[in-house]
């Protein structure tokens, strides 16, 4: 089943990879945009020998990397702090509230997150955070409308935090009590105890949680296609603060946006190439997550 999946997707994707070689992963040639290239592929002649395949998917990959890395970095901090809070510091009534809160955040469908993003956050950022001046400063390169890296990363963070909190709080809770009590008996205060004993003991679980969350963030398509601006533009860190307000479009969102074009053969094959890249990266992440869990089994800290 799994093998079939990989074979099918790769068989479909092969022409796109073989035509471009390593340039597939590079920036679009001749200063064109990746959207123009996609349009070119979509409109390529019907003769199979003259199919157009040229694409440099770097802006899409860069968009994926940026949104994922941003969300995971933010999410890791937020999730670690809040799971410490839930396990160690929250008074029992607060703890009873936190459990359903986490479950609720995990259960909200991505399309609802996307809806809130596109109808509330995007206009807010577009109208209040981006000054006219800033819009004019990049008007020749890209339009700033509020659909931006910032909104995408913010919502993606909220989406992946519950997964991380669920795993992390389980791991923190199952750290043997004797270890933390021993530390407390030595006169170490509670924060230091948590930070130096519990968090360190649960480190493999933290890695596992991060890996899972990364996989989820990589594959998030609907929400990102709604809020990230849907232009194949690579945000440029050299732009300073504007960088966070520039639109982008990750691989998964590109697939959703272009689902209608799948029946055009070379276009479909290019889309399958995107899917293949995603599939391989999530597969590698599953492997990494499995490897990260191994030391846990030795301590018997988590199942």
């Amino acid at each position, binding site marked *: 089943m799994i093998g079939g999946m990989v074979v099918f997707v790769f068989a479909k994707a092969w022409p796109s990879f073989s035509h471009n070689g390593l340039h597939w992963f590079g920036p679009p040639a001749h200063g064109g945009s990746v959207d123009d290239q996609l349009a070119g592929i979509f409109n390529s002649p019907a003769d199979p020998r003259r199919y157009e395949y040229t694409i440099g998917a770097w802006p899409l990959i860069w968009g994926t990397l940026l949104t994922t890395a941003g969300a995971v970095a933010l999410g890791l901090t937020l999730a670690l702090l809040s799971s410490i809070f839930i396990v160690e510091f929250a008074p029992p009534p607060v703890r009873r509230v936190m459990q359903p809160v986490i479950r609720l955040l995990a259960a909200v469908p991505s399309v609802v997150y996307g809806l809130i993003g596109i109808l509330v956050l995007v206009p807010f950022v577009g109208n209040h955070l981006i000054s006219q001046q800033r819009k004019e400063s990049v008007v020749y390169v890209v339009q700033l409308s509020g659909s931006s890296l910032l909104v995408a990363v913010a919502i993606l963070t909220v989406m992946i935090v519950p997964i991380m909190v669920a795993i992390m709080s389980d791991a923190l809770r199952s750290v043997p009590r004797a270890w933390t009590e021993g530390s407390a008996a030595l006169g170490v205060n509670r924060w230091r105890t948590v930070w130096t004993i519990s968090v360190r003991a649960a480190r493999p679980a933290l890695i596992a949680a991060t890996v899972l969350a990364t996989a989820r963030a990589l594959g998030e398509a*609907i929400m990102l296609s709604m809020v990230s601006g849907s232009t194949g533009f690579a945000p440029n860190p050299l732009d300073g603060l504007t960088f966070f307000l520039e639109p982008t479009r990750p691989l998964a969102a590109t697939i959703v946006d272009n689902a209608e074009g799948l029946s055009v053969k070379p276009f479909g094959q290019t889309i399958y190439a995107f899917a293949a890249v995603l599939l391989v990266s999530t597969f590698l992440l599953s492997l990494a997550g499995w490897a990260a869990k191994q030391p846990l089994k030795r301590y018997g800290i988590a199942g």
Partner: protein
Amino acid sequence: MAVATRREAAVETTASWRPLDRLALVACWSAGMLLCAIAAAIVIFMGYKGLQFLRPHLLWERPLADSDQSRSGGFLDPLIGTVALTALGTLIALPLGVATAVWLTEFGRPAPLARAVESGVEVIAGTPDIVLAIFGLVLFQQSFFGFLSFTAEGNAVFGRSFLTAGCMMALVALPFVVGGTREALQSIPRHVREASYALGKTKAATIRRVLLPASRPGIATGTVLGMGRIVGDTAIVVILLGATLQLQRVDGPPLIGDLRGTGSTLTSYVYNNSPAGEGNAPEKAYAAAFVLLVVVIGLNLVAGRIGSGRSAWKT
């Protein structure tokens, strides 16, 4: 007693802490409060917008393509689509998942195959739904699977239908069903099985009469969680169900013809009516999203209720 001592520990004064440690404590509190605030904001906002725009007639009017919002109808078809797709996905995932879990925990031989299946389920759980969707499309466009969907002229298989989407949705729900069932089976103590064998029951009879009834709450929890996932999934609907506004049936016997046709669900309805889709009718999107959220939260509450009730084997 134990509670009392813990309560005392909780009020340990932080006066002696270093400033940095106190800062970290504040950060913990604010992270927790932030999550609560976000959740509350989502619920209150969606509830407010939903009640503002949800009209009863939306629930039983069929959607129509019209730019005038007063005449574009309600979302009866997406609602039926959600129910049908969830039922279909669950119907496929439930037997498959329970069988897999029983085989894994009770038999699990040959061991390499069991490990492969185990990691296979994990990979499926980690695969993005968009990749599953697009894989489903290649798979079901093979002429071999033509009976599942609509075949155009020249033998091109369309590949988009309730049946094909249901199959892929089953994969989305499968890891939850397998996980819930396995956990329940593993929590049944060994002596229960041995007592059954001692009474002369075969292994098959033990599984059917003893283990499965005992793990019913676990199976139910996993299934309901999986259903929640199916209800909330959008990518598979957009790509594999066609996300047509109305249910479009294909020629054939009544039920089969409908299932071979395309349709939409609440999620794709929300997507299409948001500014990102073609409809661009935020009021309708809010109303549908509210219904969707109520369904998903309801399913999760049910899962939590079932899950908390299982303590049959506390020793």
